[in-house]
């Protein structure tokens, strides 16, 4: 003690004073968003890629002056190991730290657990309400029967995407026999059900020659499935597969010389094109809200600067950009970072984005934005996975055309 100088004593006293007044100073600190997604285990690359993009968008908003009168945004990565229980633990951890915004995207099973937990938390603690930013969990349930005032989805749900895909298929009269294959969990089932239902009404002449679910992230060699598809006489395949399951499926298909069109959700997802290689050119089509080769919409510099920062990754989640833009607009307009105010401002918000207009539906909190169907091609400006291959637009679907009826009956706070 005797060694302490007077200056140090005064300094520590000041520090103690600063600590006791923490709640007041925390108010002026950054607005934190908890990113709850897999950062370890089998799907870690996907979760990690998402986090990098969140941080990128966050820096962009901060560089442009922050939100609600100069406050910064900050992303806090929390690892949920793609496990619903673990996600709840991470959510509680976030809430304990005073975080009021939660983002998640990978796995509708996880999303389902989070929607429930956040509803309960907000009912019990209306003054510490938490808002849920869903950037990729596309089970239609979250904007229908299970909708929540606190949940906002920035990706088109699997029904909206399937509707666009089946509209496209409607215009391919030669296609008569389609095979559906997907991952065996809620999302894979939702894709298959939507495909069967929509093809049934739009193209009753198309025969569904196979409807198969395989275990999620467990199949190493898809050749047996390809044998089955060929035996069934499939002329095209519809799949919602993502991650390794996507790559291996296409790889087995091209190895066997089974060159039929694939209608996919995540054909351009992380690592998929690297796994598929050249054989997938012209055959793999994907439905997304954006891809890098849409010409002249002012995204090229952003794509390049992201690539300069993360050589291994591609700018992929355009919807995360839209999400940050809308979130910061809501915070700026209301001059509040209180989730309730922000949520009310987001409802019905309409903004101009690079691909057209984006609007947040008030009745079910589903973002309406243009969608693109694109095909894997050579000779593109921006490639995927550093392969030299990338996507080219087949058609663009205007936002309003993707909108679908909803069964959501939303309970608003205080109503």
């Amino acid at each position: 003690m005797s060694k302490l100088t007077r200056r140090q004593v005064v300094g520590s006293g000041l520090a103690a004073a600063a600590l006791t007044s923490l709640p007041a100073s925390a108010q002026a600190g950054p607005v934190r968003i908890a990113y709850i997604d897999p950062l370890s285990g089998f799907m870690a690359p996907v979760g990690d890629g998402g986090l990098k993009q969140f941080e990128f968008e966050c820096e962009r908003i901060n560089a442009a002056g922050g939100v609600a009168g100069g406050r910064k945004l900050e992303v806090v990565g929390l690892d949920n190991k793609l496990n619903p229980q673990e996600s709840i633990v991470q959510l509680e951890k976030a809430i304990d730290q005073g975080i009021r915004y939660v983002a998640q995207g990978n796995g509708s099973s996880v999303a389902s657990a989070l929607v429930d937990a956040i509803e309960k938390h907000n009912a019990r603690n209306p003054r510490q309400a938490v808002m849920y930013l869903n950037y990729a969990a596309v089970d239609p349930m979250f904007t229908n029967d299970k909708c929540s005032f606190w949940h906002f989805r920035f990706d088109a749900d699997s029904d909206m995407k399937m509707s666009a895909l089946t509209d496209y298929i409607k215009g391919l009269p030669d296609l008569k026999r389609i095979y559906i294959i997907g991952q065996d969990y809620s999302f894979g089932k939702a894709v298959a059900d939507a495909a069967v239902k929509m093809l049934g009404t739009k193209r009753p002449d198309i025969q569904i020659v196979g409807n198969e679910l395989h275990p999620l992230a467990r199949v190493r060699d898809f050749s047996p499935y390809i044998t089955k598809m060929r035996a069934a006489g499939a002329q095209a395949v519809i799949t919602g597969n993502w991650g390794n399951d996507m790559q291996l499926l296409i790889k087995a298909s091209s190895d066997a010389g089974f060159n039929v069109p694939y209608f996919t959700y995540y054909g351009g997802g992380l690592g998929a094109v690297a796994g598929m290689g050249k054989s997938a050119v012209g055959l793999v089509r994907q439905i997304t809200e954006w891809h890098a080769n849409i010409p002249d919409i002012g995204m090229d510099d952003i794509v390049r600067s992201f690539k300069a920062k993360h050589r291994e990754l591609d700018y992929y989640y355009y919807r995360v950009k839209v999400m940050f833009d809308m979130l910061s607009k809501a915070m700026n307009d209301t001059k509040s970072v209180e989730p309730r105010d922000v949520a009310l401002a987001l409802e019905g918000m309409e903004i101009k984005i690079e691909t057209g207009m984006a609007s947040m539906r008030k009745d079910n909190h589903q973002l309406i934005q243009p969608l693109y169907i694109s095909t894997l091609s050579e000779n593109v400006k921006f490639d995927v996975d550093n392969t030299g291959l990338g996507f080219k637009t087949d058609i663009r679907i205007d936002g309003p055309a993707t909108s679908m009826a909803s069964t959501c009956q939303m309970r608003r706070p205080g109503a």
Partner: protein
Amino acid sequence: MMETIVFSTLNGVLYGLLLFMLASGLTLIFSMMGVLNFAHASFYMLGAYVAFTLGSVTGFWVALILAPLVVGLFGAVVERFGLRHVHKNGHVAELLFTFGIAYLIEEIVKLIWGKNPLPYTPPPILQQPLFTLWGTHYPAFRIFMMVVAIAMFVALWALLKRTRVGLIVQASLSNPHMVGHLGHNVPLVFMGVFAVGCAMAGLAGVIGGALLVTDPAMALTLGPIVFVVVVVGGMGSLGGAFVASILIGLIQTFAVAVDASLSDLLARFGILVSNRSDLGRITLAQVAPMLPFLILVLVLIFRPRGLMGARES
């Protein structure tokens, strides 16, 4: 129908042979040293990554030879400076040690090569279809893999059963002191066995990585099934591992190919399950990845020493 049977057999044998390439190294190490190497699938992963990196400089064929050597060398280092010291503390310590190595290798791979899959593919000459049956190509690489696996089986079997080296290795297991007194360096023999086992895993990786996907999860996805093969085949039996690999490969492939539900199967045994119920709607294809583990459980209950295992425990 014929088409499905032929291709399912081919695919099943192919998958079985890949499993065997992995399981043979594990079996070798286990039968000779009594060490159940949890990190075996990690050496498989290393094989793929090393082959990718070397291959980008030297081409695939040189990498095919060099990568297993590198992995074997790494295995020798692990044995010499790690496992050998842990050995005296018993089997639990050994298990935990190899478990730790598996974890370390995964993290190191992520640090060096990143978390994303690598664009590692077979050389163009092997990517061409070797033959076409009923319109389906069969790529040359798949047949090449079968040839390598079978050559590996024959070479290993001949080495152990027909050469002096094999004699010493086998004797070192049961009578290490005696062999030592005869002037052989027993620790060196063990190190050699461990290195060869790892090199075999590495070779499987060079081929498996190009056939499937090279990513940091590849050890995790194949690890458990390799243990199933070794246990079902009989701990320490090379022939048993071969039979069990092919068996599991075929069962899994045919389970996918057969378009039947669980209720169809149960009906054969007189158990009626409505095909509207959740249980009845499950197809055989959906339970395919579960079947090896079901076989594992059955084997452990009814024939604990495995199909061709020599020992009771």
